[in-house]
């Protein structure tokens, strides 16, 4: 099949960008979306033009590197699917696709479709960890974890930090990401000692990074490739209220 791509091209963070149209020929249904872009880039390079920059690594939906909007929907609009997992069999000959990078103050465009997501790393650094003393390794399963808590922590830990939630949010809020990270550790016994501090610090970091805040539109949940539920945002809010009002004076 043949496709028309309208791609955002931008030299670097400071340059003004613009959409450029390309034709991609001989796309086969068994290609992935990124393989289709590889094809485009080979053609561009043959012609001596700069390839379209996009981020990718695992190409199997687990690393969180890839992601951009396809026709206005982050990761292309197939529930629970990253761009790298998206198959070209969902598209048909003659389709015209617009590719646009994540847009948020906290995610400046680096080049073309690649944005700087280090703001997420700083939110993690603020509290997305547990402090463990060194020494002999503790017995595995020495700490019992109730089944529901383990399940919830596991669901939350599925977040790959791709940033689609921020991209899709009308307020460029990072609440789904932050709530997934907070819920992951706050659900487990190992996360309890730092629970209040973690919640306060990560929410503060999120705000400092110029992300917006939630208006409960649910756009994030709809595009999240790991189907993180907005229920976790409600949990984070509760944890924050608790941490703010009940924390013992130091």
């Amino acid at each position: 099949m043949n496709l028309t791509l309208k791609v955002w091209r931008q030299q670097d963070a400071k340059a003004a960008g613009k959409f450029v149209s390309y034709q991609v020929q001989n796309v086969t249904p068994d290609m992935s979306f990124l393989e289709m872009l590889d094809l485009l880039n080979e053609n561009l390079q043959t012609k001596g033009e700069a390839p379209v920059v996009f981020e990718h690594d695992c190409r199997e939906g687990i690393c969180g590197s890839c992601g951009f909007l396809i026709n206005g929907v982050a990761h292309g609009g197939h529930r629970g699917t990253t761009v790298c997992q998206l198959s070209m069999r969902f598209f048909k000959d003659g389709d015209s696709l617009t590719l646009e990078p994540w847009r948020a103050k906290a995610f400046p465009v680096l080049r073309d479709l690649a944005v700087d997501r280090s703001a997420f790393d700083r939110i993690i650094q603020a509290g997305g960890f547990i402090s463990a003393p060194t020494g002999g390794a503790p017995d595995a399963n020495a700490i019992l974890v109730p089944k529901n808590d383990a399940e919830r922590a596991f669901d939350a830990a599925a977040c790959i930090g791709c940033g689609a939630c921020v991209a899709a949010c009308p307020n460029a809020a990072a609440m789904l990401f932050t709530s997934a990270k907070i819920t992951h550790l706050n659900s487990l016994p190992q996360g309890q000692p730092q629970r209040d501090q973690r919640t306060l610090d990560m929410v503060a970091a999120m705000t400092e990074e110029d992300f917006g805040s939630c208006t409960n539109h649910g756009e994030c949940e709809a595009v999240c490739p790991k189907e993180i539920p907005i229920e976790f945002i409600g949990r984070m809010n509760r944890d924050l209220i608790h941490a703010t009002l009940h924390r013992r004076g130091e």
Partner: protein
Amino acid sequence: MTESAVATKAAPNRLLALWSSVIGKKVVMALTGAVLVLFVIAHMVGNLKIFSGPVEINAYSRFLREVGYPELGYGQLLWIVRIVLLICAVLHITAATQLTVMNRKARPIGYESKKDVETTWGALTMRWGGVLLAVFIVFHLFHFTAGMVGFQPGQFEHLMVYQNVVAGFSVVSIALFYILAMCALCLHLDHGIWSALQTLGWVTTDNTKSLRIISRLIAIVIFAGFISVPISVLAGWVR
């Protein structure tokens, strides 16, 4: 100092700390919104007394001022309620404005192709619908509470609710404005009630569908209850 003494002493700072966080402001919106919703329900139910005739509803108007006697003087409870509502409205609007300004800044360069996949009409109209409600509330107070706009001189009479409503809604443009504002309220609450529950952490993946339906039902009942009055006056059923 005991633990609880520390807690009490630090309390105002903690409330301030909550207000200064984006989540805290949203929680304030949910709680003040809930108070306003409860008021709106009570108000709507009270309005329906107009269908029992002038004697009933005018008596109800006096009852609202006399209730609580002798512990409370004439109109005192009414004023307490008014002050609580005013505080809630001010907090709600202040938080909404501050968060909106912050959220606009979070995406300085917008999308060209972005599509909404999940959001609702109600959610999309919260801000402008809210502004319309604010305008409406001010107008409404000058209209039926103070009788300063929308009436011929001498037409409005304090405590004569039935006669005032019939006269007020006989002006077609005003009746239509009330109906329009109630459309905005219906949309605001369709999203707002569910949204407040989500903000406060009551919504789960399992119950979200039911809570959305309940939220919509409450919004529609409130809408129907309120507009029944201007419609009945326009249609000549209440006169």
